[in-house]
């Protein structure tokens, strides 16, 4: 029994969010003022879960008959998810009312999707990964189309659902083939037999199908078709969650399942696949983003190219690479949420003010917004004092350590291309006259959320060493 209490203590973040969304259901049912209570309750739950994960980061254990892992990098992923989601909830308070319809389900689905992500990151069994993935994806599909009256939102939701279900099919087929060859769905079992099975074609086919399914979810190049349309159609805050939490969760599942490939103990046999889709995503995302006029579509293509940079870390296949990927995910989560947050602040009713034109001359009227947005754009482009630079730096260093210098060089080239479209917005904001008569009432909570994420970007950029050391300590 005592053993049980320790197990429950270690998964308090999961229990908190599980209980949180049930209580949110009750609040939504019985309180007239649920639209005031729910957002703050949601934020409280996320922060409590996040701080517990931070506090218990050392309690590394595997619990529930080898089903869930806790502590270490799992808790670091929990921290990324919960703090990111807290920022999303803070942003949403005013945005979701401006967007048209308020539904209490918005916050409930937000919590269930985070619960799914946490199950994925903590999984020690392929079934847990599948369970978490479905919980996350189903919440995402409904969040994308929350406003039933908007055609674009409907399109986004349906597109995401169809392609996501297709991708899930790949994953399940991959799991079936892996189970057929390993005779177990336990990830430890797969890891211990990986080397001896790596000449088995059926096993490799299973792993590849599994990876292809997750390539959909992380929005890597040949499987990216849904990204721009879904980001454009869904609420801006939710698009921010898709591009950060969803991506981080899919990467966590890849790292958890194929972790043995990235420790350097056995060769990284998937290197060619990962390297090729990484290069394709980087260049495709950076080049196509240049021709975008809609800021949300531009951020979607930038999200594709960031998936490419993240894959460099996995292709490198050493523990530096994985530590770099997790660090990159943390910094990317906060800077991209900041970017989508500012877009959510500026967006007017009925999807107006989303073209690049509305950003010209922003600095003269809303200097604070322009300054915050510039910091985020510098960080996304990877310019030194901010978090984005160190993320790329660690990933490229890992590639060079594995003798993949050509991959690092291509990564740097692609970043140089991406600087053009990130800094174009800064140029528009500071050096051009206003072209449209932009009037926005900046919501205080939304601005607070953006300021918090920018502060986090700066803090991660100032002290990257402690964070990367912490991650590297847990992933050996």
């Amino acid at each position, binding site marked *: 029994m005592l053993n049980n209490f320790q197990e429950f203590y270690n998964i308090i973040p999961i229990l908190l969010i599980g209980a949180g969304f049930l209580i949110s*259901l009750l609040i939504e049912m019985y309180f007239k003022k649920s639209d005031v209570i729910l957002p703050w309750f949601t934020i409280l739950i996320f922060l409590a879960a996040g701080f517990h994960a931070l506090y218990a980061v050392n309690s590394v254990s595997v619990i529930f008959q080898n089903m869930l892992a806790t502590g270490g990098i799992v808790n670091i992923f929990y921290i990324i998810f919960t703090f990111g989601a807290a920022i999303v909830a803070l942003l949403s308070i005013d945005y979701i009312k401006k967007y048209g319809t308020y539904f209490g389900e918005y916050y409930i689905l937000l919590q269930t999707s985070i619960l799914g992500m946490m199950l994925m990151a903590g999984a020690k069994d392929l079934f847990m990964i599948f369970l978490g993935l479905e919980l996350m994806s189903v919440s995402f599909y409904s969040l994308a189309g929350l406003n039933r009256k908007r055609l674009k939102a409907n399109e986004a939701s349906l597109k995401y659902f169809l392609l996501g279900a297709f991708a899930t099919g790949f994953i399940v087929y991959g799991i079936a083939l892996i189970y057929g060859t390993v005779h177990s769905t336990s990830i430890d079992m797969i890891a211990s037999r990986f080397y001896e099975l790596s000449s088995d074609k059926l096993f490799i086919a299973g792993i590849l199908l599994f990876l292809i399914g997750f390539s959909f979810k992380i929005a890597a190049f040949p499987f990216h078709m849904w990204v721009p349309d879904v980001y454009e159609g869904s609420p801006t805050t939710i698009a921010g969650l898709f591009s950060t939490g969803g991506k981080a969760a899919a990467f966590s599942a890849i790292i958890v399942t194929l972790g043995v490939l990235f420790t350097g103990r056995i060769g990284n046999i998937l290197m060619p696949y990962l390297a090729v889709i990484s290069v394709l995503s980087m260049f495709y995302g950076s080049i196509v983003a240049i021709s975008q006029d809609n800021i949300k579509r531009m951020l979607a293509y930038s999200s594709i190219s960031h998936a490419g940079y993240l894959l460099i870390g996995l292709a490198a296949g050493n523990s530096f690479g994985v530590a770099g990927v997790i660090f990159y995910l943390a910094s990317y989560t906060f800077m991209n949420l900041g970017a989508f947050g500012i877009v959510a602040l500026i967006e007017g009713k009925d999807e107006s003010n989303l073209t690049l034109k509305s950003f010209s001359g922003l600095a003269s009227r809303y200097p604070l917004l322009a300054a915050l947005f510039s910091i985020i754009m510098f960080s996304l482009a990877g310019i030194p004092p901010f978090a984005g630079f160190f993320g790329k730096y660690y990933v490229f260093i890992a590639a060079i350590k594995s003798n993949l210098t050509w991959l690092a060089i291509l990564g740097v080239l692609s970043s140089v291309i991406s600087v053009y479209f990130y800094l174009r917005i800064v140029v528009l904001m500071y050096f051009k006259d206003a072209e449209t008569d932009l009037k926005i009432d900046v919501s205080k909570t939304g601005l607070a959320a953006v300021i918090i994420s920018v502060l986090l970007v700066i803090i991660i950029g100032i002290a990257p060493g402690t964070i990367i050391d912490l991650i590297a300590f847990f992933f050996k």
Partner: protein
Amino acid sequence: MLVQYIPVFLVIAVAIVFAVATVFSSEIFGPKRPTQAKLSTYESGMKPVGTTHERMSVKYYLVAMFFIIFDLEVIFIYPWAVQFKKLYIENGISVFVSMVIFLVVLELGYLYAYKKGGFKWD
């Protein structure tokens, strides 16, 4: 290697031949005395009304979803109830508590559907 599958193929072949033969032999050898009633659409003895391409009310869909919730609940409860004594001796009261938690979560969903007017017919 394929030899061991011959019985399977044989069964499939016999099934196909049998199905085709019965359908066509009744067509060929059977007597045909058609009447108005015989030629009309079969609707369980009722007089056929309207076209087959009716629009179904989406309410049926909701009922089907609620049915699935309770169906799944029963699927989980049955094996639990059958094995309860053995599980109780091995694991103690936590066996009962975990099922109660499961039911509470499910009933919350039911309550939510009720409060949101999921059971209102009009």
